[in-house]
């Protein structure tokens, strides 16, 4: 394989099985990274056919190639600038007309196109009859029917790729044309921009994009010409401001001609599986009940499998590792023993114990996504999310936050609009995670006795109210702007693919370990160092000095330095505050920590501490993934500042109000 690899780009709309096909073609020969300068995931893999090496690049899932989103710009820039040898466009056969829209956009571009017609089984289940040969003849490009989840048609697709790449002169697609009543305008614009089109861009395509009002292309062309010439172009465009819709209808008219012969629709009145399920799953009341049951099951799984596994990992694996290392390091200096067993192992332990919960959550998320249910959950929750300027798609990631904020932040990847995604990320840490609930469950009974359950419930409610308020405020200030329209396709239900879900879980966990892992480890070692330096004793450590320094701030909430130190150590992991307080109060055999706490602090302080704990700065792992997912430290720091402000204000307010009672 001395010859250079051919590049194959994989295009397709969201939810058409692109990941499944990508995994089928490349197996484990794949690398997940980011598109240069973007926070959007890029998957590149390789495969061979007849001794030829192919590099497969997975383009982001897009409905069209107009500059409506970053994904769309990435996809078309890759095709125009990198000139792949062939573009495979994966279509969902069951919603062929919608899916052909992307084909109509791809055909005018310079790269040869192969159509992979996926989900032939789902189409059949919905009563559709599709003849791929007829479609192939109509389009003038290769059409390969497939069922990617059952590995049907993969070999034929690879053969088609190999054949098209080596016979480019035979490529003769029938390209869509603009609607007749706009043909003249198109020609007028083409004449005006001739010679002013940036290199690599096809001229007729640029003219079409100008008519569609594509911001990116408009900017590019404008930069190329003097203002006088641009004014002429602009005048033509202004006189035809309905061109956007005309271009789109032209494409759909073309699609209509393509499918007329190739597709036979079911007789009217025949009710498909999707319709039958949606009568319940998308119902405003029953849909909510079903969603509640599914989410309840998700929690039950997490707590009945994930939490015990987490505990086991913590005691057996992490604890075992610590014991092993400390016996190996018995002769080493004390500081080194501490650094390894308390600092490093503590950090590694935090990272490892996150894994069971992450795996379970990502598997559930993947399952809901892959079957097509996720869109229904977004649909039934849409009404409630409107209040915060978000729509339904933000609900599931936020809900995941009850288990752990880390998958919640990572789960925001399902939201297309960058604005909505960032807002959801900023709100996610306000969902009380399991670790915070542990702290509350531990301390509340000491202060509130029988009312503990009621107080815990009230604290959760407080978090949700604060979340809603923060959402409303952020939506009107930092995230001001047009709310992304709620309009999305509801995919047909289909059987999930274990391999696709498994690989997604694996890649999510790997990304967490790689990126978040190192940050968590660094912060754990830092906090450990501060807690033992300079004397080796927590009471006289730098951390304690910081606690004393912060005590005046703490007094606003009724805290002493020890409570401030506990909050600081909770930055590594929320449940750390209990361990820290245990050390600081010398809790032991004679009196447990809750009793000591209740004896030391009055009720207003206790309540304020719980409130602050529930709303405090996200833990190290969350901060790390916020940075990773938002793409900059700026947003992570904004979030830290936001939560710090909210929690301290809420704590001070609680202390005052509770003091009045």
């Amino acid at each position: 394989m001395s010859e250079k690899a051919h590049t194959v780009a994989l295009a397709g709309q969201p939810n058409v099985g692109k990941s499944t096909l990508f995994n089928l073609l490349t197996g484990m020969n794949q690398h997940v990274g980011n598109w240069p300068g973007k926070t959007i995931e890029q998957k590149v893999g390789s495969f061979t056919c007849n001794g030829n090496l192919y590099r497969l690049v997975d383009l982001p899932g897009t409905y069209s190639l107009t500059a409506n989103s970053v994904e769309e710009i990435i996809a078309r820039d890759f095709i125009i600038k990198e000139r792949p040898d062939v573009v495979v466009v994966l279509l969902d056969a069951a919603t062929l007309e919608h899916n052909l829209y992307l084909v109509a956009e791809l055909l005018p571009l310079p790269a040869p196109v192969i159509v992979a017609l996926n989900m032939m089984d789902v189409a059949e289940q919905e009563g559709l009859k599709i003849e791929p040969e007829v479609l192939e003849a109509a389009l003038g490009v290769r059409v390969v029917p497939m069922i990617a989840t059952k590995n049907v048609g993969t070999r034929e697709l690879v053969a088609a790729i190999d054949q098209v790449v080596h016979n480019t002169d035979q490529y003769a697609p029938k390209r869509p044309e603009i609607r007749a009543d706009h043909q003249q305008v198109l020609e007028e614009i083409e004449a005006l921009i001739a010679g002013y089109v940036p290199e690599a861009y096809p001229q007729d395509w640029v003219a079409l994009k100008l008519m569609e009002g594509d911001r990116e292309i408009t900017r590019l062309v404008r930069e190329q010409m003097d203002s006088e010439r641009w004014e002429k172009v602009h005048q033509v465009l202004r006189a035809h401001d309905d061109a956007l819709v005309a271009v789109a209808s032209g494409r759909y008219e073309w699609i209509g001609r393509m499918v007329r012969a190739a597709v036979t629709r079911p007789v009217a009145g025949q009710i498909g599986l999707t319709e039958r399920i949606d009568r319940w799953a998308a119902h405003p009341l029953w849909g909510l009940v079903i969603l509640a049951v599914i989410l309840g099951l998700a929690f039950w799984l997490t707590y009945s499998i994930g939490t015990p596994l987490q505990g086991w990992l913590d005691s057996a694996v992490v604890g075992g590792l610590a014991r092993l290392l400390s016996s190996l390091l018995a002769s080493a200096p004390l500081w080194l023993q501490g650094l390894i067993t308390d600092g490093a192992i503590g950090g590694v332990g935090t990272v490892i114990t996150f894994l069971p919960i992450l795996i379970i959550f990502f598997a559930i998320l993947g399952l809901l996504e892959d079957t097509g249910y996720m869109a229904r959950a977004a649909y039934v929750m849409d009404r409630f999310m409107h209040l915060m300027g978000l729509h339904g798609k933000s609900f599931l990631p936020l809900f995941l936050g009850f288990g752990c904020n880390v998958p919640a932040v990572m789960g925001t990847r399902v939201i297309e609009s960058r604005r909505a995604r960032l807002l959801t990320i900023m709100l996610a840490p306000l969902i009380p995670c399991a670790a915070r609930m542990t702290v509350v469950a531990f301390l509340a009974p000491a202060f509130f006795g029988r009312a503990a359950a009621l107080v815990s419930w009230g604290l959760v409610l407080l978090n949700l109210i604060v979340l809603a308020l923060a959402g409303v405020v952020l939506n009107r200030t930092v995230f001001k702007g047009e709310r992304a329209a709620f309009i999305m396709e509801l995919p047909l239900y289909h059987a999930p693919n274990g391999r696709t879900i498994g690989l997604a879980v694996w890649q999510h966990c790997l990304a967490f370990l790689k990126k978040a892992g190192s940050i968590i480890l660094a912060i754990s070692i830092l906090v450990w160092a501060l807690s033992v330096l300079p004397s080796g004793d927590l009471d006289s450590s730098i951390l304690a000095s910081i606690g004393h320094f912060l005590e005046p701030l703490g007094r606003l909430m009724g805290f002493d330095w020890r409570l401030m130190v506990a909050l600081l150590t909770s930055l590594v992991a929320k449940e750390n505050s209990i361990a820290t307080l245990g050390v600081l109060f010398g809790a032991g055999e004679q009196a447990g920590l809750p009793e000591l706490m209740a004896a030391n602090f009055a009720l207003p302080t206790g309540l304020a501490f719980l409130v602050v704990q529930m709303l405090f700065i996200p833990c190290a792992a969350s901060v790390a993934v916020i940075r990773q997912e938002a793409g900059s430290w700026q947003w992570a720091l904004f979030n830290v500042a936001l939560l710090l402000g909210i929690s301290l204000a809420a704590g001070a307010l609680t202390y005052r109000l509770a003091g009045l009672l």
Partner: protein
Amino acid sequence: MEQQTGHSQSVPLHTLLPHQRGIITDLSGGHGLLSRMATLGFTPGAEVTMVQNFGHGPLIVLIRGARVALGRGEASKVYVRPLNDV
């Protein structure tokens, strides 16, 4: 084939009842919304069927062979000429 029942006036899409069909006559709204709607097949001349409409909250319509969920606000910007009564 279609039974014309005297509807000649266009009405906003969200006023269609479940199972009622209509032909899109006009779209309004900002550039971004128009572009997304047009991409999903909401163009003049296209036939839509209301699948779910409870009089409040988002809707589900069938357009060009696919089920699309959209908010009431978004639907109010699409005008249709109803084809049948239910």
